[in-house]
C-alpha cells in the first residue's frame, strides 16, 4: 500500500484508540474516598483550638473522632454545615458518641468565630498553622470529613460536602463493624 495510505490508517487507528479511551472509562461511586492513611494510625496531631486550648489527637483514644476540614468561604462547606450540626448534636446525645472537631483550613480565627456564631455549632475548632494538619492527612481541597476510630486508626475519608444522614449512616456502619 502506498505510504500515504499507511500513514493515514495508522493515524486514524491511534485517534480512534484515544477517543475510545476517553469515552469508555467509568467512574466509581463509593462514599468513602481513597487515601493511603485508611486503616493506618492517624497522624499525631498537636495543636490548639481557636480559644487557645491545647488539643492532642492521641489523647482522644477511646472515642470516635470526626475531623471536618473547613473554610468559611468555601461554598460546599457552607452548604453542608446544617447536616454537620445535626450530626454533632446527635452524637453528643448518645453515650460513646463521636467527638466532632472542625479543622480550620487557611482561614482567620475571627472569620471562623463569626461563621459559627451565625450558623450554630459549638464544638471545638482547631487551628492549623501553615496547613500542617491538612498536609499530614493529605487534604488538598475542603470540605473533607475524616472518621478515626477509638484505637486511633483512620477509618473513613469523605471528599466534598455531606448531606443529611450520610455521616450517621457511616458511623452506624463503622460501629457495627467494630462490634462484630
Amino acid at each position: 500500500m502506498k505510504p500515504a495510505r499507511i500513514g493515514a490508517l495508522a493515524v486514524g487507528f491511534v485517534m480512534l484508540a484515544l477517543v475510545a479511551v476517553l469515552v469508555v472509562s467509568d467512574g466509581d461511586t463509593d462514599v468513602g474516598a481513597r487515601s493511603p492513611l485508611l486503616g493506618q494510625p492517624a497522624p499525631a496531631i498537636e495543636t490548639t483550638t481557636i480559644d487557645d486550648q491545647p488539643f492532642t489527637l492521641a489523647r482522644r483514644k477511646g472515642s470516635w473522632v470526626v475531623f471536618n476540614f473547613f473554610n468559611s468561604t468555601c461554598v460546599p462547606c457552607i452548604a453542608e454545615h446544617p447536616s454537620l450540626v445535626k450530626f454533632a448534636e446527635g452524637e453528643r446525645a448518645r453515650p460513646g458518641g463521636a467527638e466532632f472537631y472542625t479543622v480550620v483550613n487557611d482561614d482567620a480565627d475571627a472569620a471562623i468565630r463569626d461563621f459559627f456564631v451565625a450558623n450554630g455549632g459549638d464544638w471545638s475548632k482547631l487551628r492549623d498553622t501553615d496547613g500542617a494538619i491538612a498536609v499530614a492527612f493529605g487534604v488538598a481541597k475542603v470540605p473533607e470529613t475524616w472518621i478515626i476510630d477509638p484505637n486511633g486508626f483512620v477509618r473513613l475519608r469523605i471528599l466534598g460536602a455531606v448531606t443529611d444522614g450520610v455521616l450517621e449512616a457511616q458511623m452506624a456502619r463503622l460501629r457495627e463493624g467494630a462490634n462484630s
Partner: protein
Amino acid sequence: MLVASATAHLGRAILLVGFLAAFFGVFAAAVGARRNDRKTLRLVPRFVLLSTAMAVAAFGVMEWAMVTRDFSLEYVQKVGSRSTPPLYNFAAVWSALEGSILMWVLVLAGYLAAAAWWMRKRMNEPLIAWAMAVMFAVLAFFFLLSYGPANPFVIGPPGVTDGPGPNPLLQNHILVMFHPPILYLGYVGMTVPFAFAIAALITGKVEDGWLHLTRRWTVAAWGFLTFGIALGGWWSYEVLGWSGVWAWDPVENASLLPWITGTAYIHSVMVQERRGLLRVWNVSLLIATFSLTILGTFLTRSGVLNSVHAFSESDIGPWLLVSFGVIVAVSLVLIFLRGDQLRAGGSVESLFSREGAFLVNNVLFAVFAFVVLLGTVFPLVVEAIQQRQIVVGEPFFDQLTVPIGLTMLFIMAVAPVLPWRRDGSETLSQRLLGPSVFGLACIAISLVAGAAGLAPLLAFGLGGFAAGSALRHLWRAVRVQRLRGFVGRANGGMIVHLGVILICVALAASNSFTRSQEIDLVVGRVASFAGHTFELVDVVEQRDARSQSVRALVSVDGGRAYAPSITKFTRIGMNVGTPSVRTTLTHDIYLTLEPPVRQDSGQARIKVFIKPLILWLWIGTFVMAFGTLLAVLPTRRRRHREAPSIHDLRDEAIDA
C-alpha cells in the same frame, strides 16, 4: 423584564443569523465550486459580509453589556463587577469560556473576511471557493458553539446588582489585555492555510500554487502564535510569583502543540517549494496544526484533565471532541484518497544536503510534538485504564525536550550552510569553522562567568555555533544586497533564528543557575544574599473598593525600593501575591512577599530569586517578532503572486 433581557435576546439572535450566514455560505461556496457556477459564487462575498458583521455585532453586544455592567446576563454576573477598572472590565469578556469562544468567532470571521477580500478577484476559482467553504464550515461550527453550549447570553437570576469580577490573577497586569487576543490571532489564523490545504486535496490541485498563496498567512499566524505564547510566559513571570516562565501545564502545552507543527511546516514547506517533495507530509502538518488547536481547546476547556470523568459532564467537551474527530476523519479520508496524486517525482540525494537537513528537522519536530502530546494526554489514558490518577509534569518534559532542543540548535547551525541537491559535507567543514570557534568562545566565556553542568554548557556552545552560522548568512546577504539583505524569507528567517537562540540560551541559564533564598527582613537591618543587599524600608497597607494589599518596600543594593505585595480581593476571598522585579541585562532580582504578614510589626519575610539572563528572553522574543515581520515583507514588487520570487530563491542562493 423586557428591557433587561433585550440584550440577551438580541445577542442570541445575532449569533443565530451569523450561524445561518456561515452555514449557507458553506453551501454557496461548495456548490458553486463543484458546479463552477458563477452566480452561486457571487453569493459568497455577501455571506462573508453578513457573517462577519454578525460576529462583530455579537462581540460588540457582549462588550456593551460588560461595559455598562448589565447584570441581567449571567456571564456579566460571573465575571463583571462595578469595582473593576474599565480596562480590566473590557478584558473580562474573554476571561471565561463563553466569552473566549465569542472572541474565537470574532477573530475567525475577521480572517474569513480578510481572506475573502484578498482573494476577491479570484473567487471563481474552485480552489479558492472550496477554501471559503471550509472556512465557512469552521465558522459555522463556532457560531453554533456560541449559540448552544457556550452561550454567553444566558439570562441570569434577577436582582443581582454586582459581581465578583474576573479572576484576580487577571486584574493586576496590563498584559491580560493582549495575551489572549494575540494568541487567538495565531491559533485561529491557522484555519486559513488549513482551509487551503483541504481545498487543494478536494480539488486535486496538485501544483503548489495554493502554497505560495498562503505562505505569508501561515508565517503571520505563526508569528502571532509565537508572540502570544511568549506573552503568556511573560505574564506568568510578572504575575504568578513562582519566578518562572513555563510550567508545562496542559493549557500551555495546548498552545505549544500547534506551534511545534506550525514551525515544522514553515521549514518543511521550503523543500516543497524548491523540489516539490514532501507534499503529503506538509499537508498533514497543516491539518495537524489546525486539529491540534481544536484538540488543545478540548483538553483545556472540557475539564477532562482534572478527571477523565469530568469530560462527560461538561457541556462543551463532547462538541469539541466530536468536531476534532470529524476534522481528523475527513482529513484522513482525503489524504487516503488523494494523497498519492500529490506526489511528484524526485528524491533527496544526500543526508548532507539542505533537503536532508530538513528531513532530520521534521523528525525532530515530530518527536517534540509527540513528547508534548503524550505527556499531556498520558494521565487520561492511565486513569481510564487503571482508575488511578497520575501526573506528568515538568521533570518529564524537561528531561525529554532538552536533548531535542540541543539537537535543534545544532541543525539550526548546520542547515543554512548546506547546499540544495548535493552532498555538502565538504562545504560544511569550510563554512562552519568560524561559527564553531564562536561557539567554543561562548562556552569559554560562560565557564569564566561561573557556569557549570553539561546541558547548559552544551546549550551555550551550540547556541553560539548556531548564532555564528546565522550571522554568517546575514553578513553575506548584506554584503551583496546592502539593507535589502535583511528582508525576505531567508534573511528574516535567520533573524528569527537569532531570536530563538537568545531564548534558548536565556532559558538554559535561568533554569540551571537560579539562586534563591528566603530572608526574614527587619526594618533597619540589612541582609545580603548572592552579592546584593536587601533592606526593609517599610511595610505599608493599602485599601480600595475591591481589595486590600500589604506591600513590603525593600531597598535593593541601597537603591530604590521594590514592593512585592500580597493582595486580598475582598469579594472573592482570594489572596494573590504579586512579585516585584529588578531587571538588568545580566540577571533579574525577583522578590516575593511570603505570608503571613504581620502589619505594623516592622518585619517581613521575602523570597529572593536571582535569575540570570531573563531579560534576554524578551529581547529574543522581539527579535523573533521583528524577524518574522522582515520575512513576510516582499523583497521586490512582483507581478505574479503564485511563483516564488526570483529574489526569494536568490536569498537562498547566497549560499549555493
